């Protein structure tokens, strides 16, 4: 893996490596049915990883939505509405409480790190406000967020879709990734930057990676040893 090592503390991720990491990540996601996909934009070399999932406000996943991972961005929402026929309406007695989360992993060329974009809305189309998003932030991160919310979650235009998304600001990604990468270099282990990074930032906004992603890394290390 090629890392830019101009200074010993800098472990930037170059774009091709980003795409490789995403490919490995998605391959594993497909194996376990975790719902991540690669989306590319017509006529652009850029692409991103995307996952949509549905969650009740109290954190549970409504059962009828578990398979809705194949449609593209704009159609997923409509498709879900069509699925709510009378027979299923009784199961969704609290549809106002179902939230659709959408997560995108993009590459930031200016920071040379991955960036997590996300948005959330209720089934009636109402997007969650920043306050409501913060309510969903895991309590162990709240102290940090309360001190400087504008440093970490901001609202920006999605660079490829042009729609408003919330973003976990990437300016400090290198800071928390560096020790992990330095450690792995010392130990001569290959790690998937995107997997490690997402395992750290994901829970902040309600995105938890199944443990098997961690096992994937160790399997790769075994093979190369």
């Amino acid at each position, binding site marked *: 893996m090629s890392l830019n090592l101009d200074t010993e503390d800098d472990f930037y991720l170059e774009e091709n490596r980003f795409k490789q990491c995403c490919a490995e990540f998605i391959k*594993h996601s*497909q*194996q*376990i*049915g*975790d719902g991540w996909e690669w989306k590319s934009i017509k006529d652009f070399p850029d692409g991103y990883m995307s996952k949509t999932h549905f969650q009740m406000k109290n954190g549970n996943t409504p059962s009828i939505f*578990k*398979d809705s*991972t194949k449609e593209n961005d704009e159609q997923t929402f409509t498709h879900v509405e069509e699925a709510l026929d009378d027979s299923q309406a009784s199961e969704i007695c609290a549809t106002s409480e179902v939230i659709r989360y959408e997560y995108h992993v993009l590459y930031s060329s200016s920071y040379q790190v991955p960036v997590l974009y996300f948005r959330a809305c209720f089934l009636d189309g109402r997007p969650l406000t920043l306050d409501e998003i913060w309510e969903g932030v*895991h*309590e*162990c*991160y709240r*102290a*940090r967020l309360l*001190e400087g919310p504008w*440093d*970490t*979650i901001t609202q920006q235009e999605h660079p490829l879709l042009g729609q408003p998304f919330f973003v*976990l*600001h*990437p300016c*400090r*990604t290198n*800071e*928390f990734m*560096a*020790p*992990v990468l*330095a*450690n*792995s270099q010392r*130990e001569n*282990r290959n*790690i*998937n930057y995107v*997997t*490690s990074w997402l*395992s*750290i*930032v*994901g*829970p*902040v906004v309600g995105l*938890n*990676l*199944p*443990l*098997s*992603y*961690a*096992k*994937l*890394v*160790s399997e790769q290390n075994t093979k190369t040893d």
Partner: protein
Amino acid sequence: MAEVEEQLPLSPQDGGRGECGEEPSDGGAAVGVAEAVPPSAGSPVTEEPAEDTKKKIDVLLKAVGDTPIMKTKKWSVERTRTIQGLVDFIKKFLKLVASEQLFIYVNQSFAPSPDQEVGTLYECFGSDGKLVLHYCKSQAWG
């Protein structure tokens, strides 16, 4: 093996999902799925040897980067302790301020979610009778 084994003084928290892999959808096959450990329901802290459901596992904590090294590295932890609980404990032990983040990693590279139970991690990543966890402090995560 003259290492000191101490018990974490905090009471166990109810854990979250307790599996190595997510429930597979129709087409997928989960890697390394283990039995879910039922969380103990608000039981009081005890110094006595634990019952089966509160059996403790050995955890070895290793510092990464500039993070202070704990004097006591080996701990006996209840299976139902969550990552978040462990983070809180280590932060107190190292006297970190609330705004400093502490990350815990398995396999030196993967941060389990805060609700993940230590017992499950031990099932998936434990070896030689213990679970090795790396911890790292950071001012920033976003």
